[in-house]
């Protein structure tokens, strides 16, 4: 084949991914912020005059930072401890505990909050921070494990022989710190983004509000605002949050870039816990209990009728709850699962070329891909509406028989844009490990871009792609706000649950939650059962 044609073919996937990124991530966000500068046919900063002028805004940011720091501190300690126990020690059952370290990812934070509110009347700033810490511990845990397992055992042994065990451990910790730091920063980002959990855990005399809640509140106000300032206030107010998140994400990327990515490190020697063994087991069991078992128990109790007094709790009631849920909301279950699967596939298809380009020293793409995650979801969704229901989109698409705005495709692509950073980061890690010499050798032997992609990069990247797809699938199952904002994403389980529970339907609501938890766990469990291996490459 003509080398120019080959070169063009090789660029098609990247062009496709970049086009997707521009259309479904950059354009909606830029269009949204552009509105704040374009007023009465002229460019103006007029609407930015009140920016951060209110003391409450500054206080809310400070509160978000404090909550983020507290939750991140807890997540850092718990996640690093779990990683250390499961990678470096002879903890009994560590392979099981290693899997459950990522378990909180499948439980939506709001479900964790509902469960703990019911189980122990959890509330307040500390309660809220603790629950958000638990929800986001997997980020620290996964990256801490990565840091600890990629340290070369030979180097450790050499340090131990030369300067003793303590010095070797300090060296190991220093080596893992960038990864742990990156994990903490990811956890921080998710804590400061979250508005549902702090709002849900409102308590008597609540004298605090997070910045994400404030932006969400302004979005609510924009529904009745008449003044243009009211309408655009959530967009303007979101900027500090966006900057805070972007700073944290870029810092995380910088930290991760400092990690030595050996693909074949000699294993570290295992340490015996001796008298600390009960402490290790207790830590892992407590984490499992707090993050997974309590929500499961509370949901099962709800299904059995714990929230009503008309009849006693029973297994038969639980069965009826499931029947009622499936009778009324089977379409929501099918929609959620379909959405999860399509988002997973789309995510990998678009993230892989970006990850490859990033690994080939186009590092800015990795940073850019974080954009979708940095903007509050209500604004990200508003941007999608702005672009895809615009007169231009209507003229171009709708007049030609394609109604993208009202279609499931927009939901899939919107979700994929939102979760893109996870897939890019996951795939990037693996792609960087592939030596350019391998690709060069294949090229020298006359393999074209398609053959190299199919026979070289695909097999090497497949485990990471599976992990990225799984992550996308789980996140799509638990996303509420974006689904509710895009017309065709309206009928999903999480949205139904939020309504059903509000109207006292804890029984069918819990059945739906348990169904989604099962659906989230199922692919990983099947993979584990069928191959005997855990999904790798989540980092």
């Amino acid at each position, binding site marked *: 084949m003509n080398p120019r044609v080959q070169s063009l073919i090789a660029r098609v996937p990247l062009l496709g991914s970049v086009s997707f990124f521009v259309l479904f991530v950059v354009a909606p966000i830029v269009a949204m912020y552009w509105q704040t500068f374009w007023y009465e046919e002229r460019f103006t900063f007029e609407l930015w005059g009140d920016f951060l002028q209110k003391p409450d805004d500054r206080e809310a940011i400070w509160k978000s930072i404090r909550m983020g720091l507290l939750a991140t501190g807890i997540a850092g300690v718990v996640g690093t401890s779990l990683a250390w126990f499961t990678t470096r020690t002879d903890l009994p059952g560590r392979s099981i505990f290693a899997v459950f370290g990522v378990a909180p990812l499948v439980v939506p934070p709001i479900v964790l909050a509902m469960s703990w509110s019911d189980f122990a009347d959890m509330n307040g700033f500390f309660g809220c921070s603790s629950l958000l810490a638990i929800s986001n511990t997997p980020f620290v845990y996964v990256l801490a494990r990565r840091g600890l397992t990629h340290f070369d055992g030979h180097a450790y042994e050499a340090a131990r022989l030369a300067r003793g065990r303590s010095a070797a451990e300090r060296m190991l910790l220093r080596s893992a710190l960038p990864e742990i730091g990156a994990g903490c920063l990811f956890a921080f980002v998710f804590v400061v983004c979250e508005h549902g959990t702090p709002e849900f855990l409102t308590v008597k005399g609540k004298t605090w509000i997070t910045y994400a*809640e404030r932006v969400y509140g302004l979005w609510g*106000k924009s529904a009745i605002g008449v003044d243009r300032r009211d309408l655009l206030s959530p967009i303007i107010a979101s900027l500090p949050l966006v900057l805070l998140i972007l700073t944290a994400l870029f810092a995380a990327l910088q930290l991760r870039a400092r990690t030595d990515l050996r693909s074949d490190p000699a294993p570290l020697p295992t340490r015996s816990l001796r008298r600390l063994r009960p402490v290790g087991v207790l830590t892992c069991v407590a984490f499992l209990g707090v993050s997974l078992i309590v929500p499961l128990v509370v949901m099962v109790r709800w299904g059995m009728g714990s929230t009503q*007094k008309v009849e006693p709790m029973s297994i038969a009631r639980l069965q009826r709850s499931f029947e009622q849920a499936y009778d009324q909301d089977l379409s929501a279950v099918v929609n959620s699962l379909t959405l999860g699967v399509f988002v997973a596939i789309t995510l990998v298809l678009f993230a892989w070329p970006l990850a490859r380009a990033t690994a080939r020293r186009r590092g800015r793409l990795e940073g850019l891909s974080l954009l979708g995650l940095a903007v509050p979801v209500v604004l990200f969704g*508003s941007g999608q509406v702005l672009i895809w229901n615009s007169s231009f989109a209507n003229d171009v698409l709708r007049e030609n028989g*394609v109604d993208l*705005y009202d279609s499931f495709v927009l939901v899939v692509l919107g979700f994929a844009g939102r979760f893109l950073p996870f897939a890019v980061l996951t795939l990037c890690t693996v792609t960087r490990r592939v030596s350019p010499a391998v690709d060069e050798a294949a090229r020298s032997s006359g393999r074209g871009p398609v053959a190299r992609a199919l026979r070289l990069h695909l097999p090497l990247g497949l485990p990471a792609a599976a992990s990225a797809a799984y992550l996308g699938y789980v996140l799509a199952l638990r996303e509420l706000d974006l689904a509710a*904002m895009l017309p065709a994403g309206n009928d999903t389980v999480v949205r139904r649950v*939020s309504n059903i529970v509000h109207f006292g339907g804890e029984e069918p609501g819990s059945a739906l939650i348990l169904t989604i938890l099962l659906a989230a766990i199922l692919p990983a469990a099947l993979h584990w059962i069928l191959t005997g291996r855990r999904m790798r490459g989540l980092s």
Partner: protein
Amino acid sequence: MNIRSLLTVLPFVLLGCAEEADVTLYVALDEEHSKQIVRRFEEETGLTVNARFDAEAQKTVGLVNAIRQEAENPRCDVFWNNELAHTVALGQLGLLEPYESSSAAGIPAQYRSAENTWTGFASRARVLIVNTEALPDRGEWPTSVEDFTDPKWRGKCAVARPLTGTTLTHFTALRERLGEARFEEWVQGMIDNDVQFLQSNGATMRSTADSSNEIVFALTDTDDFHVALSKGLPVSCVFPDQGEGQMGTMLIPNSIALIKGGPNAENAKRLIDFVLSEQVEGLLAAAKSAQIPLRASVTPPPSEQILKIGSFRQMEWDPEATASALADRIGEFQDRFSGSR
């Protein structure tokens, strides 16, 4: 819908090529109650309805924002709101098309727009929910919203934060009615009396119904009260301010409106006629949400505790004035009830 039919339509839906519905409805009333009405309309008329529901977490705001954002290219034909103020606000923004439905006969003029841009129906009352285990003696029950400031109930009562939904409308209407000074005195009285400001009316209901909780009464909507009642929880309800010279209980109806420039205006009118019919008001009264019909001729909710229209003193309030004041009030309330103090 069974799995086979879902799988059959899936490829078309994915490609955005599904056959267009005859009318598009945005519904803020919970799906559990509104879906059956939509299905019945489809059965009776043969028309297909594309119904988009709101998430409770977004409390109507999601759909209202969608209608505002879509204003240039409207997608929605009919907006069925579970309250009134946001609909009126849409009308004031010029996003609603006047339509006088023949089915609206009998609905009090107070709950109909003078320009016919919106019509109210099937309402909820703002009531006090009381824990009957904590307060077994009916003579001890609170009877007025003024009781929230009574030191007798210090720390024992709850109200939803007035930032969204019916509580926002209620507080805004109260401020219009009482005037700034009196309203301010009442709110400060509640704060001084350690009233708990919770996330939602559902949360106030749950706090009151839980006898292990210190809350013994709260302000909520009749639909939330009815949920607790149907679960066998120890609650009762009081329609507040029924005494001579008192202001009465506030009713907040559902509302329905025709969207200006919507793509299917004629079918939309048929849908509005159907939803405003006495038959639908009766269905909503009989449903779990126990909505109070605005027409005395419609059968009321079966629970005796939810009073029939005309059998209690209603609070007089002006939806147009309340909607006009909402934007200012929500800012004040956000600073007051969720800001740092």
